[in-house]
């Protein structure tokens, strides 16, 4: 177990390092530095500026300077707004985290319930309806769903208010963000539930006379949950990246929409900072869900 955990943690650290290397050198490969604008400063001023921001040093040294700054939570200054990027990230991330968190919870809880129902009523009407729904949901990209819902429910029918800072309505964004992972969780739960229901210990429990409800909740569902745990990592990652588009559509000022604005403005320090922040967060969450998985299921062997 310890060896496995150490291996996974090492992989996570290497991954985060690779992310930083890729991000930094990719951004530096873009022609034109921060001072190569239409109004180019005097050579002397420019040299002073480059010295001030350590741009006269070799690229590798710049990378380690940047890494050191990032580790201290300093992502630099946005070239567009001139604000500290770390402030922007931490301000807007709370909105994204709330949106993503609710979506993950919704996807997990609905997915688990629907998946269990589908497994218990296999090949009957409820199962067929759920399969139909999950197939459909897996084919609709979140941006299509989000835009259509905004159009129909917010603008045409006016059932839900359009997002504003004072009137925050999470219903439509959460639906748009959680439908696709919900379909995935449903499928996953159904497969693993069917697998568990076919096991001998379920029959033993029933033969002992344990009530069906108790068998389902205590014996079946608990064991069927295990594969779903591994999906929590990718699910949160999906919610974080998916929230970019959803925030963009519903004009929610979260981290995702800041990222897209950064792309639109070609605000490279902003893109760099957000990418490193989000990517590291995703890697960490995947790490946690993998470790949790191995802690929950004692049957897993560590090679």
């Amino acid at each position, binding site marked *: 177990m310890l060896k496995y955990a150490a291996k996974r943690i090492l*992989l*996570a650290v*290497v*991954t985060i390092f*690779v*992310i930083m290397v*890729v*991000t930094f050198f*990719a*951004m530096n*490969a*873009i*022609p034109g530095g921060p001072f190569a604008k239409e109004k180019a400063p005097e050579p002397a001023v420019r040299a002073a500026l480059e010295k001030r921001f350590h741009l006269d040093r070799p690229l590798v040294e710049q990378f380690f300077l940047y890494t050191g700054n990032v580790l201290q939570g300093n992502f630099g200054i946005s070239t567009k707004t001139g604000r500290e990027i770390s402030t922007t990230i931490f301000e807007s991330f709370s909105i994204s985290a709330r949106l993503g968190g609710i979506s993950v919870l919704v996807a997990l809880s609905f997915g688990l319930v629907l998946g269990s129902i589908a497994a*218990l009523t296999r090949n009957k009407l409820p199962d067929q309806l759920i399969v139909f729904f999950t*197939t*459909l949901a*897996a*084919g*609709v*990209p979140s*941006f*299509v769903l989000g*835009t*259509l819902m905004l*159009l129909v429910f917010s*603008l*045409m029918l006016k059932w839900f208010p359009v997002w504003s800072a004072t009137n925050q309505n999470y219903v439509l964004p959460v639906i748009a963000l959680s439908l696709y992972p919900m379909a995935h969780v449903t499928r996953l739960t159904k497969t693993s539930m069917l697998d568990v*229901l076919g096991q001998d210990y*379920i*029959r033993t429990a*029933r*033969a002992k006379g344990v009530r*069906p409800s108790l*068998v*389902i909740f205590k014996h079946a569902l608990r064991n069927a949950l295990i594969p779903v745990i591994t999906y929590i990592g990718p699910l949160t*990652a999906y919610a974080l*990246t998916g929230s*970019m*588009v959803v925030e*963009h*559509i519903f004009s929610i000022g979260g981290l995702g929409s800041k*990222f*897209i604005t950064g*792309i*639109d403005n*070609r605000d490279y320090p902003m*893109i760099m900072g957000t*990418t490193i922040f*989000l*990517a590291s967060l*995703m*890697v960490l969450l*995947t790490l946690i869900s993998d470790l949790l998985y191995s802690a929950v299921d004692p049957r897993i062997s560590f090679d």
Partner: protein
Amino acid sequence: MRTQRTDKMPRAQLLSMHIDVDQFIPATDEEKVRHERMMESTTFLKDGLRKLFKKPLAVLSIVILALLLLTIIFAPMIVPYGYDEMISVNGSRDRTAKNLRPMTYSVNEQKAIEEGQHIFPHIFGTDENSRDYFIRVVYGTRVSLTVGLFASLIVLFIGLFYGSVAGYIGGTVDLVMMRIVDVIYSLPDTLMVILLSVVLDQVLGTSLRGTALGNIGTNMISLFVVFALLYWVGMARLVRGQILSIKNNEYVLAARALGAGPGRIITKHILPNCISVIFIATALQVPAAIFTESFLSFIGLGVQPPMPSLGYLANAARGGMQTYPYKLAFPALGICLIVLSFNLLGDGLRDAFDPKLRR
């Protein structure tokens, strides 16, 4: 009072251990015949296709994809408009043809029709630059499908090569190669795709300008590069797993004893035995690629305007979506149809061709 029917077994309760009588169905005539004499032998392909065509959803998705394919091949030949052509009447640009509703004509066109000219209807109307919207959606579908297919092929080839080498050689080479895959696999793909698209767009844009490749659009090329760099790892893992499970079979040993080289063993003895699994994975890669392309186009990193793609059109239509909701509906519907059909087709193929699921 509830009446008990005696001619039927009581309905089985949840998790009950009663035998469900409904599961016992009489044998069909075909099955009865099969008990008496051997059926003629069938090939793997024939048997799989027979199973595939028994699934209504798979057949439906094939029909939808075929219809879409026919439309995007033949529509540009029939419809007399180009995807970047502003509508003109009698040789001069028609300024009244902006934002027409589906199947309507502009004022100038109406006049021309009254004069006896034949004007092809705007099936989906026109956009704000008075371009025929139907042909733009058709070209958008073309672009999206092409991106999906090509990206899947790139992923297939790289994954096939890398996975075969790692799986066949094994040992330290395999270990090192798979650690690299592990790292790339745990990179958050969407973020990296966005990052690389931003960078490649800038880097390639300056170096490719004016060349033949530049005409395809730098964003398109960067999309393919991104797929080639990131998305092959899943395929490589799959191929490696397949090869590891096959390479210890006796027939591989026999081939090696007869002096066959590794290249021949991989292509002649191993790959044919796992080709169905790989093919299915490729089919399921297509909707994923289309998804990614439309996502990137939607956030402004996809194809180069005026070239349309479905995601680009959907994004462009958001501007006036309250006035012209159909402009959003057509490309959105297109994406959903394509992704859904490919998903269903991939599922159907898996059920029909995956040896592990065969009974």
